[in-house]
């Protein structure tokens, strides 16, 4: 299993310099990918633009949109942005997409909340044709057939989408047990659809080391996930705060068949990345 690291693109104190430092360090470190989160109504940076900014200062790591709410975006523009990012990064883009649960995000961009599931299906169906066919809307992505497309979510419909439209599944976070159950649903759907091989399986989690960082991260998680109601506390409790917790978590995900686990920082201090790198290399 590969381990990637998330960029702090939803932290209030982010600057261009901090972001670029994270990206450089990640590229030099043991990480295989850089993740970004997506939120419209929040003090966060736009995920695809953030990835574009860090594409220029990295050579090696994959750039993973984890996870963007696709129906908030125009499909053709999204296809073009993704193809552009794939081209400019030399074929390093992974595109994770989901419905997005927050009505306020839809209202903010003037997108219809109702009927979003059907629109999402249509987007998934069309994205690929822009990348695979040589339509008038370019550019051609570097990766054959376009960047790998991962679908996130937890409903029965999610897993049907993974099998029907995507290259894999991206889980939204939780203990290894929860990931394993979701992974089985994705594999069951994949097999039933007669897709060759197995779906790519990606997971994510949050980490923070040191008393202050842990406390600040918990506050951040309670705030960022306030829209989930009681689950914000669950998510905050799931924060990985010790080397042992990180190692056990990684082992649990690897055993459950995860291909790539992205660990997101709870605070934006790049020193957190160094500490995580030490654990992974240790």
């Amino acid at each position, binding site marked *: 299993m590969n381990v990637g690291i998330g960029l702090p693109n939803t932290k209030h104190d982010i600057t261009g310099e901090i972001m670029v430092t994270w990206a450089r360090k990640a590229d030099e470190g043991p990480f295989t990918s850089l993740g970004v989160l997506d939120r419209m109504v929040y003090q966060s940076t736009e995920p695809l633009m953030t990835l574009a900014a860090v594409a220029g200062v990295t050579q090696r790591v994959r750039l993973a949109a984890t996870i963007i709410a696709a129906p908030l975006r125009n499909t053709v523009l999204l296809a073009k942005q993704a193809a552009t990012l794939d081209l400019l990064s030399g074929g390093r883009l992974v595109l994770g997409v989901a419905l997005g649960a927050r009505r306020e995000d839809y209202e903010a961009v003037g997108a219809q909340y109702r009927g979003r599931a059907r629109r999402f*299906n*249509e987007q*998934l*169906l*069309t994205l*690929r*044709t822009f990348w*695979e*066919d040589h339509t008038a809307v370019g550019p051609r992505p570097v990766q054959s*057939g*376009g960047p790998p*497309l991962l679908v996130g979510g937890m*409903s*029965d*419909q999610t*897993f*049907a989408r993974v*099998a*029907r*439209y*995507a*290259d894999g599944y991206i889980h939204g976070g939780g203990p290894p047990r929860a990931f394993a*159950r979701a992974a*089985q*649903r*994705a*594999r*069951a*759907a994949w*097999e*039933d*659809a*007669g*897709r*060759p*091989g*197995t779906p790519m399986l990606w997971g994510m989690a949050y980490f923070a080391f040191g008393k202050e960082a842990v406390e600040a991260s918990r506050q951040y998680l309670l705030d960022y996930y306030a829209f989930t*109601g*009681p*689950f914000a*506390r*669950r998510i905050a409790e799931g924060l990985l705060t010790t080397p042992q917790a990180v190692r056990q978590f990684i082992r649990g995900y690897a055993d459950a068949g995860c291909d790539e686990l992205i660990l997101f920082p709870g605070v934006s201090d790049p020193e957190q990345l160094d500490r995580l790198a030490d654990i992974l290399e240790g």
Partner: protein
Amino acid sequence: MRITVIGGGPAGLYAALLLKKRYRDWHIEVYERNPAGATYGWGVVFSDRTLGELREADYTSYTEITDNFVIWDTIDVWYRGQLTRCRGHVFAGIARRKLLAILQARCRELGVLLHFEAEIEDPTQFISSADVLIAADGVNSVVRSTFAEVFRPSMVLGTARYIWLGTDKVLDAFTFIFRETEHGLFQVHAYPFDGNTSTFIVECSEDTWRHAGLDQADEAESLAFCQQLFSDHLGEHRLLSNRSRWIRFITLRNRTWHYENMVLLGDAAHTAHFSIGSGTKLAMEDAIVLANAFEEHGDDLEAVFDEYESLRKPKVEAFQQAAVESQTYFEHVRRYLHMEPVQFTFHLLTRSGRMSFDNLRLRDPTFINAVEHSCASDDGKLSAALFVPPPLLTPVRLGPTQLPNRLVLALSPDVGARDGVLPEAFVSHVLDGAHRAPALLLFPPVAVSAEGRMTPECPGLYRPEHRDAWATLMEQVHASTSARVIAHLSHAGRRGATRPRRHGLDLPLPPEAQWPLLAPSPLPYTPMSPTPRAMDRQEMEQVREAFVRAARLAAEAGVDVLQINMAHGYLLASFLSPLTNRREDEYGGPLENRMRYPLEVFQAVRAVWPEERPLGVTLTVSDQEPEGFTPEEAVTVGRELKMLGCDFIQVAVGQTTPHTRPAYGPAFLKVYSDLIRNEVHIPTVCGGYLTTADHVNTLVAAGRADLCIVSLEDYP
């Protein structure tokens, strides 16, 4: 803090005492509409796991409850007058009256105020007078119905009738009795709960209930009827009634379990069918979690209730899911009356999916030994052999052919054929698969014509050179292994002319590479798919003849087993489904018409396919969409196919349109296989992500499937 509890059942009393124990200065009152000593249930059951939680929550009441427990470890199943026994389960029973007395005494000891015969008609008075209103007032909760637009309750009524009786016969096991009568089947769920009495629930279908005249019977007549019906089991013992009447079970769910200062507990929030016991267990667990949440969040009610609901709701919903499966089993148990006693019992024990072959082997090796001996014999009676193989390695008959085991290996869907010709790499993949020693190797769909291909890389059986390549392949497989090969004949219909599935399903080929598509009606599969042509009679004959030609070529090539695709929205399946068949001729409309063409194709193939080789069908059992093809229709089609000489059915669901979304997960097709096998009485092949030997053993031993599909991806 002032806490008002409405309802003095186990949930309400237990919540009151747990809170009072921790917060001695809180003012806690319980309102119960019945008198102190009255209760209308008999006994309640607990499983061993619950007990630890009770012990931690309140040791005093725990000791008293367990002192009064009747404990047993056996499930007895009386069926066809014969007893089959399975041990190793832990159950504990207690009289409901005793349980309530213990909880009431403990409440009083701690200083909870109990009001009996206090009927609350308007709970709104407590919203302002109390800080917290705990609604533990049962399935007919007044609080919940007063705020129904907030809690949004959904109630699903079961189809069976049951009556909750007691008996003075002391049982020593959880006892199921199945009794066939001239009116229909009756079943009993009975268990002990104190030293003198047992609960005795009698259940039957609505039809049976009416036929037996029980809809007209009063309490005494119903009691006499049951006493008479089970006189051989009861002997000199008597059935007892306590305001008992024939009712239908209500499965209750609520959108939310709390509102402002109100919170729902126990049956007021959720019910789960009695056949997996027990509402009381769930109710008391609710109370424990609520009390813990108060401890964690103090008087922040929003946080307390959020914590309670977020912890309990997923657990209760999982339990309700298992309960629904168990309830469905009992509502359809007549379907399984053809089974021999051991298999019948194994099927019953594994009904809700919570117990498997391996679980039961740990609990009762003797019982599983009997299950294995039953699977290993031809007639379901017990084999005389000392040792027998596990169910998945037992032989099975598929029409004229005896197969050595129950495993069907699904070959990779990534064939990479050119013009229908199998490439070298795939031939070696088939041979590798054959060496893994499955009974059968299942090909991905093989096109009966170039136009019938899903993708340009589909294998085909429509040209002499295809036959020759298959003949060579069959020789190679047969020369070195005993595996048999299934050619799965298919016409893609409106799902044709798509790209290979590396990046997704049903992505149309670029326009210049497409070929014209055929379907019953001119409806494109996705908004991007080309529109198919509605088939005329001549085209229908041509496609039928293509199936016949493919069957002939397969027979000549020495293919062992042939299977015709009527699933997943391909051509023949799209005739079956009303979603895709809008024809107005004799091939559209009612099921009789929709199935006409698929059956004609089947008959034509049967006529040319050698009698000594099995012929089967892959059949969609449910579209899983509103207005779609239903399981009942699938049973009808299955029966027709069987009459026409079909030897087996592989079950499938969904994909009729791109909008279906089955509940994917391990063994997700098992209920459909169970339905077809036991309603149509035809061997079934079941896939649906079976990844362990335990899955296969459990399905085969229970008679839910005859053969199981496994994939090399899961057994690398």
